[in-house]
């Protein structure tokens, strides 16, 4: 079997077969469950809120996916280096860029698991069916590059920083900064700085696209600007991870 695929399977397998990885999945599913139960218990939800609920669930899935990617990305390099498992890997005949691609494959497997885990939740809350299929599609198409980009960021930082703690802290700060426009009020987002930040921020790009597709029923093809910004961010983070990993010393 191709060594890259083998490594990706190992990295992804760690999520499903290790106690720590399964614990993470349990925690993430618990968060989605609590959100779903809160919705059921709220008898005052409006019709609009159903599309809003699917949008919120899509946003929550993407945010949790990005969080998982950051944790896995930090662990993939900095964590393995601390545990001593990175060196044996780097002492095999695998070239470093293939080791990195194998770890990228692991991130993809982890997000796929997360996405499959989230699909029943999206189905469960999307009872009126407003744009439910489109919601699932847009989360797959836009959520994937956003999540992977944060994973690459954490891997690149892990290759440059001494330990997991610094890597995780920095990655989480960047993730929070990206999510911050959504925590601000609409008026702040309308300022010049707010609009610029919204335009270049991949997380905002995904959420704005979700809003357009799920709530406003726009076509996916109309989200080209958001998709472009997200893909640019993905490419930048992949380059960052690749160049950092190549330079990573023992």
């Amino acid at each position, binding site marked *: 079997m191709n060594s890259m695929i083998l*490594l990706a399977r*190992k990295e992804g397998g760690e999520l499903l077969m290790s106690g720590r990885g399964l614990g993470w999945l349990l925690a993430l599913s618990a968060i989605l469950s609590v959100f779903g139960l809160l919705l059921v218990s709220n008898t005052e939800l409006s019709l609009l809120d159903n599309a809003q609920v699917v949008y919120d669930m899509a946003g929550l899935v993407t945010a949790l996916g990005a969080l998982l990617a950051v944790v896995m990305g930090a662990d993939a390099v900095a964590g393995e280096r601390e545990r*001593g498992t990175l060196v*044996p*890997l780097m002492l095999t*005949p695998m070239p470093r860029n293939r080791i990195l691609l194998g770890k990228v494959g692991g991130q993809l497997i982890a997000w796929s698991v997360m996405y499959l885990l989230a699909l029943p939740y999206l189905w469960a809350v999307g009872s009126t069916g407003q744009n439910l299929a489109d919601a699932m599609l847009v989360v797959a198409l836009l959520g994937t590059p956003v999540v992977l980009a944060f994973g690459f960021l954490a891997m690149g930082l892990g290759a440059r920083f001494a330990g997991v703690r610094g890597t995780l802290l920095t990655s989480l700060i960047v993730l929070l900064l990206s999510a911050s426009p959504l925590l601000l009020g609409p008026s702040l987002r309308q300022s010049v700085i707010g609009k610029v930040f919204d335009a270049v921020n991949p997380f905002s790009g995904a959420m704005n696209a979700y809003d357009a597709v799920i709530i406003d029923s726009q076509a996916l093809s109309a989200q080209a600007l958001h998709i472009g910004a997200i893909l640019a961010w993905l490419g930048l983070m992949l380059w960052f991870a690749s160049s950092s990993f190549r330079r990573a010393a023992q």
Partner: protein
Amino acid sequence: MLIDIQSLRLQIDGTPVLRDVNLSVDKGEIYGLLGPNGAGKSTTIAVALGLRQSDAGSVRVLGVDPRVDSEAVHAQTGVLPEQGGFYDWMTARDYLDFFARLYGKEYDAAALSVRLEQVGLDPALTRAIGAYSRGMKQRLGLARALLPEPRLLILDEPTNGLDPRGRREIHDLLIDLSANRNVGILLCTHLLDDVDRLCHRIGILVEGQTVAQGAIAELLRAGNQPSRFRLRLTGPPSAEVPGVVRVVAQEGEWWVVDIEPGVLPDAAWRQLLFSGWPVTEIHRAGGGLEDLYLTLSERRAA
């Protein structure tokens, strides 16, 4: 020569870590690399494996510059780092199978069992590695190092965590590999008993510099280090053997003697036996390699 390092220099963040390292390991040879903590042993190994770039000097491993083609070096080198590096959630079989494939080898279940038995692990073990003892993990690390059927082994504290029987088993394995399969072994260890038993040659690294290199007996001779032994005799010695051994002390059956400089221990024992000494046990009692090592490292530090 499997490893040939000459005049290696390296600074890290402006601090000289390796000042002048010279080291060579030949086929079928066990070379012991000794030195105090922080001497630069691990850094030297990292350079040899292409994990670090040196500032000056020449490094050739298996005929290749590891800076240029580290993958070629890795394909034929087995390494046991000090920190084992295991995936706690895997079983030993899964772990070996995973790394075997990374080395481009495909081992069936029977072959993996042989690999596990070779290092003294039970092939039927189904527990995850996280439940293993330190000694078991050490054995597994050695099994991993042997997966590529290497021409060169680099082992950092391979008997760490092993009981005396386990240490003896590993010693026998390493001796077999070097003597019968011509594997060159670079052994980093603080256990001088291991060095004494296993190593054909040693190198002593102090503050990033090779201060001594060669066969133990030659180094002892060159360093004028007395070799002190405790001998158990069933009766009084028949005669003194001047120029061979000098009696230092006696406690009942036990006689403490120094082998005169320039005399090899094997030659001394033959002479004593021919002279009628009723020797039943021989034990090293200070002096020798430990004193040489301490002397050289203290001298350098001063």
